[in-house]
């Protein structure tokens, strides 16, 4: 596991500025799905366009990291870079100025944002919780299949999932409380 796997975004940014390759790898790993999701789900771009935007956004992050004023604001900065690049791509295709597309993708972006927050909170849960939630909600496995594969009693699966969801909620609420507090 990377030394930066549990590092905060600010620590990651400092590592990247110091030329630490492991920090850069972790930043790409942490935000690659995010950038891709904004392009594909938020702006409905093709996979080919999303790939171009992905390359371009990470090149910009690499070359402009020094211009980031607040190290802990990495995510909104990446979101802004990606959004701007997506709008440029759409404007070029439609042959209109980027400014005319200001509201494009704004609703779906909040979904992407929420999904990313859930994914981040998930990684903070125990491996067992991550596994059981992934099996039930992402892989659509039945209680019986989960019980058989994890070798635990079938009758306990629903309550285990409920407890793990409770922990996930605590993580998310804690995160939201913290961000509310930081705005004050």
């Amino acid at each position, binding site marked *: 596991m990377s030394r930066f796997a549990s590092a905060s975004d600010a620590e990651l940014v400092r590592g990247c500025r110091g030329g630490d390759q492991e920090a850069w790898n972790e930043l790409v790993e942490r935000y690659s799905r995010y950038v891709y999701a904004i392009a594909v789900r938020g702006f409905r771009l093709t996979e080919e366009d999303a790939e171009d935007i992905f390359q371009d956004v990470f090149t910009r992050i690499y070359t402009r990291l020094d211009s980031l004023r607040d190290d802990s604001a990495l995510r909104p900065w990446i979101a802004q870079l990606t959004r701007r690049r997506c709008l440029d791509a759409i404007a070029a295709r439609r042959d209109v100025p980027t400014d005319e597309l200001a509201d494009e993708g704004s609703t779906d972006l909040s979904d992407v944002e929420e999904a990313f927050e859930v994914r981040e909170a998930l990684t903070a849960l125990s491996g067992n919780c991550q596994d059981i939630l992934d099996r*039930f*909600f992402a892989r*659509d496995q*039945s*209680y*019986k299949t989960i019980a058989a594969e994890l070798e635990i009693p*079938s*009758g306990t*699966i*629903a*309550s285990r*999932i*409920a*407890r*793990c*969801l*409770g922990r996930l*909620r605590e993580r998310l609420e804690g995160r939201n409380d913290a961000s509310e507090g930081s705005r004050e």
Partner: protein
Amino acid sequence: MTTDDYLELPLGDLLDRLSANGLAPGGGSAAALTVAFAARLVAMVARCSPAWGDAAGVIAQANAIGDRAVELAHTDGRVWDEALTALRDAEAAESDDPRKGFALEQKLEAAAAAPLEIASLGADTAQLAALAGDVGEPTYRADAAAAAALAAGGASAAAHLVRVNLGVRSADPRLVRALASETAAHDVAARLRESHR
């Protein structure tokens, strides 16, 4: 009727469509929707249990199961339509072409896959209903028991369709799985009925 989305139909229209002399929705879709009703009932019991710390987690699971069941209602309707068309074509052709026989067999296999999943969802719903009945607000225990009974009914209907669609022998693993789901759902429903009397 033009819409193929059952959730977009008023309940009366859906029931009319179910009883119409046509194709889908049929027994598989009705079984899936019964499981969906049961799952939403479990969500209601959990929502009415404010003292239950895990209630939100149960609601999330019940909603996920309910959504999957509705999806399966559509899938079942679609594949059953295709199987029925293939069956009618085969009867009309009156030929012994083995390729047509194989194609029909494939369609019927596909038509059995959805009920197999519906039976499994029925078992899961019954189990979730048991948790809600045991730990949720006592006032709503009867609703939890009703949910388990509905889920068991859906599982039974679906298991029956697996048997008929496949025309399988009793040792076929798919039928074994469907019957195990049916039994599990019925055991839970019976226990809830007894313990909440």
